[in-house]
């Protein structure tokens, strides 16, 4: 009888905590793993991209307004001659046949009335297209000369915006802003929400009632409208934006944490700890927090995209960050205004935003599947 192996021994392979099992499950989820890679790339791009980008996000190239994205350097060959002509129009000289060769432009110049002024080379330098302009005046005839200048090689792989700023650099900086707001506002929501919800759930009774009543009232306020008011009236500053967005989003967090805490309090392992005389503080630390952490993490990954969206929404309305700083919402809004003649201005920021949000959502879903196996 006793040799009946009914209480089967646990599998002899390695012992895994729930966290380790969850990570294994996550690793099997290809979409989530790809999302992690994408997020890392985007985060690095946002953090370091603006430092190494060829253009500053605020540098304006008046000659290159709304140029199309291209892997070829600007100016393109056919642009060089008109650019030289327009640059030298104010020099009031006659131009001969312009030659372009090996990144250099050679322009025979002549004047009918007066000697050539060597300073007219500045007209070329002032243009975004040329640099190192030099004028060699014909020794025999000071009214004639040859201008030489290097043609710039400017890369605008995503084109430029309506002010002639490099879109790629602007997307990099806006990634930084969006991710920063996403992380900070989520942190604000997380801290307020978890502290509030855990307190209400653990203390319970009348205090819990009052606290959750307050949350209910807050829920029925048209919060987005308040955020808009806040931002409009108190100026557009980044810190305020974190606070405003965080203050809107903590409600869900509080509700979720409270629900979790309440259900954990009724679980027998918490009662067992109470029966052993474990103090409230230790119960919260050892039993409540580790068991709510999963839900909180899942919710956090899903909160970040919500926050980014809210920020973009405000920026879209023109209430977000201010020029020359920018965010994805601002870029999309500008793109929308220019989509008829420069659709790429909408496409690239919108695509970046979509990729970012997709990655965050997939990661959130993946984490939920991994941490909450009853869902499978």
């Amino acid at each position: 009888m006793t040799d009946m192996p009914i209480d089967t021994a646990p599998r002899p392979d390695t012992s895994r905590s729930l966290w380790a099992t969850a990570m294994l499950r996550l690793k099997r989820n290809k979409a989530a793993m790809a999302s992690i890679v994408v997020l890392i790339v985007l985060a690095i791009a946002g953090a370091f991209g603006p430092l190494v980008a060829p253009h500053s996000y605020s540098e304006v190239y008046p000659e290159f307004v709304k140029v199309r994205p291209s892997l070829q350097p600007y100016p393109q060959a056919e642009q060089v001659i008109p650019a030289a002509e327009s640059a030298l129009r104010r020099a009031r000289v006659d131009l001969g046949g312009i030659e372009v060769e090996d990144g250099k432009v050679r322009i025979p110049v002549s004047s009918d009335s007066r000697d050539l002024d060597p300073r007219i080379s500045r007209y070329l330098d002032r243009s975004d297209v040329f640099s190192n302009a030099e004028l060699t005046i014909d020794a025999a005839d000071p009214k004639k000369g040859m201008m030489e200048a290097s043609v710039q090689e400017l890369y605008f792989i995503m084109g430029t915006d309506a002010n002639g700023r490099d879109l790629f650099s602007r997307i990099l900086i806006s990634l930084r802003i969006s991710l920063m707001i996403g992380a900070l506002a989520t942190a604000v929501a997380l801290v307020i929400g978890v502290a509030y919800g855990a307190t209400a759930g653990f203390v319970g009774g009348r205090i819990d009632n009052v606290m959750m009543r307050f949350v209910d009232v807050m829920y029925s306020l048209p919060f987005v409208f308040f955020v808009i008011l806040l931002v409009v009236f108190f100026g557009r500053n980044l810190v305020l934006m974190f606070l405003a967005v965080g203050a809107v989003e903590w409600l869900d967090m509080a509700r979720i944490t409270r629900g979790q805490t309440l259900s954990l309090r009724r679980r027998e392992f918490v009662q067992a700890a109470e029966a052993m005389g474990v103090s409230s503080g230790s119960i919260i630390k050892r039993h409540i927090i580790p068991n709510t952490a999963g839900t909180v993490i899942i919710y956090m990954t899903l909160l970040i995209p919500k926050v980014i969206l809210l920020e973009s929404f405000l920026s879209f309305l023109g209430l977000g960050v201010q020029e020359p700083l920018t965010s994805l919402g601002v870029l999309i809004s500008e793109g929308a205004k220019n989509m008829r003649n420069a659709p790429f201005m909408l496409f690239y920021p919108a695509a970046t935003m979509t990729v970012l949000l997709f990655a965050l959502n997939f990661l959130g879903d993946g984490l939920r599947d991994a941490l909450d196996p009853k869902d499978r």
Partner: protein
Amino acid sequence: MTREPVLEIDDIRVTFDTPDGAVEAVRGVSMRVGQGETVAVVGESGSGKSQVMMSAMGLLASNGQATGSVRYRGQEILNLPTDKLNKIRGAKITMIFQEPMTSLDPLYTIEDQLCEPLMIHGGKSRGKASARVLELLKLVQIPEPERKMKAYPYELSGGQRQRVMIAMALANDPDLLIADEPTTALDVTIQAEILHLLADLQKRLGMSILFITHDLGIVEAFADRVYVMRHGKLEEEGETAQIFNAPVTEYTRMLLDAEPSGTKAAPAQDAQVMLEGHGVKVTFGQPAGFLRKDTQFTAVRGIDVALRQEQTIGIVGESGSGKSTLGRALLQLLPAEGRVVYLGHEIGGLDRKGMRPYRDGLQMVFQDPYGSLSPRMTVSEIITEGLLVHEPGLSSKERAKRAAQALEDVGLEPSMRNRFPHEFSGGQRQRIAIARAVVLRPKVIVLDEPTSALDRSVQKQVIELLRRLQKEHALSYLFISHDLAVVRALSDYVMVMKDGAVVEEGQTEQVFDNPRASYTHELMRAAFDLRGILREKLA
């Protein structure tokens, strides 16, 4: 075996596709149910007994696959297209399930739900169907059938819901009724009523019944023939009397043997009183107040109890009798009125901090071995948590030693201490929970249904363990359970509770063999003489 077969199952196999690979739940099982016959399928949890029927009825979870053959009166029905299968299920073959609480749709009235199969299979109009529903509800003896017809499931008790399910099963005069653990979630007295109803209906209507259960008591009282299943295979089959009197396989013998046995001798008359309660009363809810109804409800109505050293007091009662609440109140885990004295110290009404010095002597083991261990802590962390509170001076090495010793005490390998609860079976988890209590060297342990969630065979091992620990450490137990057989085996004194009050108390033998209160009498018969009840009532 001369009866014409209604259902024939041949070499059925059920496989589930899980993230960890394919799992074979049923591995080649064949069964037969004859006309008017009552057949029981017995097995412990995980034996695949339910899955056989689920696959026959096309109710497998979406990741399940069944092969083999299931014939209803000669017609193959396994993996039949749904529309063809629907001509048989609900009409010729009907089912009742274990969970009366969730098996009915909470959003529709009883009448709505009972009318559906009548209208679909019987082609009845709504009016005629309604009339038949009333007839059926009367047939299953539901009180006030006219009113209950209009009620929603949540307004009925568990037993009444199961009667409704039976009414639904009988609606179209089926050939075969499959009952999947229909009484497991019910109290014993209700169980006896439901079984009687089923037996009575079968006698009158003549359908076959296939009864799936883990409870051998029911099988013996109820079935003509038995199939014993284990690990997805048939272990043994035969006439009920033959299986019970002369089981062939060792497993069946072990199952029959697993019924709790033995008795406990009472402690000496002058044994020290460890824990005493005087007039313990627990009230939940709040009195009426401003804009608020009175929600007060007295769960325990002034109970006296005195637990001596090495004594085991069994507290029995059905759900809602207040037995668990009493246990928690004595340990000051719930606010309660009345006096509680532990070893001469008045502990009634002490707050958390005031109770702390006494907690190591007063421990508790809970019912649910899955819920009572923190899922994110290792076994050793779980067991030593109490030591951190009560013996803070111990070094981590000493704590580890104590944990290892406690594990050995409850019959587990000390090397398992770095594993997590989810890696253990139910019985092992209950051992860990017991180790957590024992490591503090308590004097009194309140055991709240510690064996109820376990299979009989595992239960037996836990009972042995509790007996051994009691002897070795001179423990006093307060053993709370609805399972009378277990209480009889473990305790020397019994208190029977009903509606928050003690109906009867006394020495175990006396209460079990010569109950004075009629309620106790009813309880004992329902638990130990099911066969007698059925025979008597059907005669």
